[in-house]
């Protein structure tokens, strides 16, 4: 119980939340995030007013998917910016050395900062719920859709947060850490799509109707939008007749959780002043 309490009263977590909520930037980020999301959803609703009807299940599902993808896209923009300066920012502000000489371990510092950034993203996610309520008005959204989206978002947030943390610990400068984080996110979001397109284009004659090559499955499983889409709507591209060796949705969840753990471990490694001190050997010397 005490450990649980200590965990939640972790000084870095508390300080990060306190500082974040005091900056002028925070309300502007929330405003812009909700403004863009709400604006796009309301624009779609007004543009396709004639085709989207209350109680029409397909309309509801379509809007829900649109909202989910929009959220993924916006998070890809916000998360790297929020996380990539967490450690390098401390380094640039010249507060890191002081922090490293306290009783906090590198693992605690990395984990607390990571958790603080995720808390902020969760705040954005939760604050977007009213927009989801608008979409739910149209009906046709199964409960498992909602849980699948939430789970997918959580894993995506965890991964992107870990990626930002790793880059922040690895690179000395926040600018470089931010650029590398954005580039990596872009490679996952756009690069994988291009790669998939090119591979399908060049390999098309060799593709058999009832069998999906493993590399397609892996790329689909690594891509956030495709994996989510296939998790929600399995008959995408008429692939429902195919037998998946690896289903993209659970593959995505699993692989990005593993990546996240590795990245957090790497961030801790690069933050530690004396790396890989796994055991103690020396005894206290009498002075």
């Amino acid at each position: 119980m005490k450990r649980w309490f200590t965990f939640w009263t972790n000084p870095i977590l508390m300080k990060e939340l306190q500082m974040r909520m005091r900056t002028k930037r925070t309300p502007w980020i929330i405003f812009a995030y909700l403004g863009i999301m709400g604006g796009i959803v309301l624009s779609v609703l007004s543009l396709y007013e004639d085709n989207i009807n209350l109680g029409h299940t397909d309309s509801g599902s379509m809007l829900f998917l649109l909202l989910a993808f929009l959220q993924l896209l916006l998070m890809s923009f916000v998360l790297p910016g929020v996380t990539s300066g967490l450690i390098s920012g401390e380094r640039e502000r010249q507060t890191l050395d002081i922090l490293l000489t306290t009783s906090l371990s590198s693992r605690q510092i990395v984990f607390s900062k990571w958790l603080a950034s995720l808390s902020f993203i969760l705040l954005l996610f939760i604050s977007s719920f009213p927009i989801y309520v608008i979409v739910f008005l149209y009906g046709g959204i199964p409960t498992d859709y909602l849980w699948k989206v939430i789970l997918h978002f959580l894993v995506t947030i965890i991964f992107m947060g870990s990626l930002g943390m790793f880059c922040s610990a690895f690179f000395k400068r926040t600018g470089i850490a931010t650029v590398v984080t954005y580039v990596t996110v872009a490679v996952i979001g756009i690069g994988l799509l291009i790669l998939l397109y090119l591979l399908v284009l060049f390999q098309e004659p060799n593709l058999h109707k009832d069998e999906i090559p493993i590399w397609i499955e892996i790329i689909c499983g690594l891509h956030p939008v495709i994996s989510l889409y296939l998790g929600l709507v399995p008959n995408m591209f008429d692939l429902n007749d195919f037998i998946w060796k690896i289903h993209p949705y659970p593959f995505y969840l699993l692989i990005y959780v593993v990546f996240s753990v590795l990245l957090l471990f790497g961030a801790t490694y690069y933050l530690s002043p004396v790396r890989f001190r796994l055991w103690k050997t020396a005894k206290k010397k009498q002075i």
Partner: protein
Amino acid sequence: MIQIENLCKTYQQVPAVNNLNLQIEPGSVFGFIGPNGSGKTTTMQILATLLKPSSGKAWVGGYDVQTEAEEVRRMIGYMPDFFGVYDYLTVMEYMEFYGACYQIEPSQSRKVAKELLELVKLSEKQNHYVDELSRGMQQRLGLARCLIHDPKVLILDEPASGLDPRARIEFREILKKLQQMGKTIMISSHILPELADLCDTIGVIEAGKLVTSGAVSDMLVPKNQARTLEVHVLEEVKEAEELLQQSEYVQSIRVEKNCLYVKFTGDSTKQVQLVQQLAKANVPVLQIFESKLNIEDVFMKVTDKEGNS
């Protein structure tokens, strides 16, 4: 309290610290002197568990800085040469944050923070944001932050750099109080006269090597060496010089206007005899005193010798 044995640190085969051996006694104030890039900060960072030495060992309070870093961190208060503060945190919140980092109970942390802010004369600023404080105030706050967990050892790297004379004097007074409280202080500074005033022992480091170390008093008045007497006369300089040269205890004399700088090997009794001889010969002596080295002279002398060798 601090012991360093054959400590080496190299950066891409360039030695920053080269076979350093040092011992600092509990309760003493040790001044670490050296030119820029001599290895002071590297040594201090190793002691603060921020750097891994290439070879050699170091202990703080009997704990190995490499293998018992956690215990070492509990024993030390470290203040780097440059440090920043967090935005949007008040002075009290800043102190409480570091208190929490050392796992001090919030109520206890607040109590200690108040006492420390009193010590560094920042009580009135406890509700101000730290980034709004002046540089001198931030340095004092940094020192208070170092003390939040009541460390036995303070490692202060250039704590007075960038401070105006008043802030430096205030800072020095606080350090004197800490010295009286029995803290072991290791301090590096470029303002050498201040170190002489504050420190019991000093160590001069150059190119990663400890050139000399010892008690400040011994450094300023070297034992078994000729003392320099300054003899100021109103006139008859020539006669005074001839008279002084007759003494077997006078090694050499250098004359500048009406002042004679005499290298004298005799003790106080012989010095009195010398004065009497001058008086007997009616040399109008204005004053005689022993000229002492200051810490800057010691530093220049030691580093010059090292440079020439």
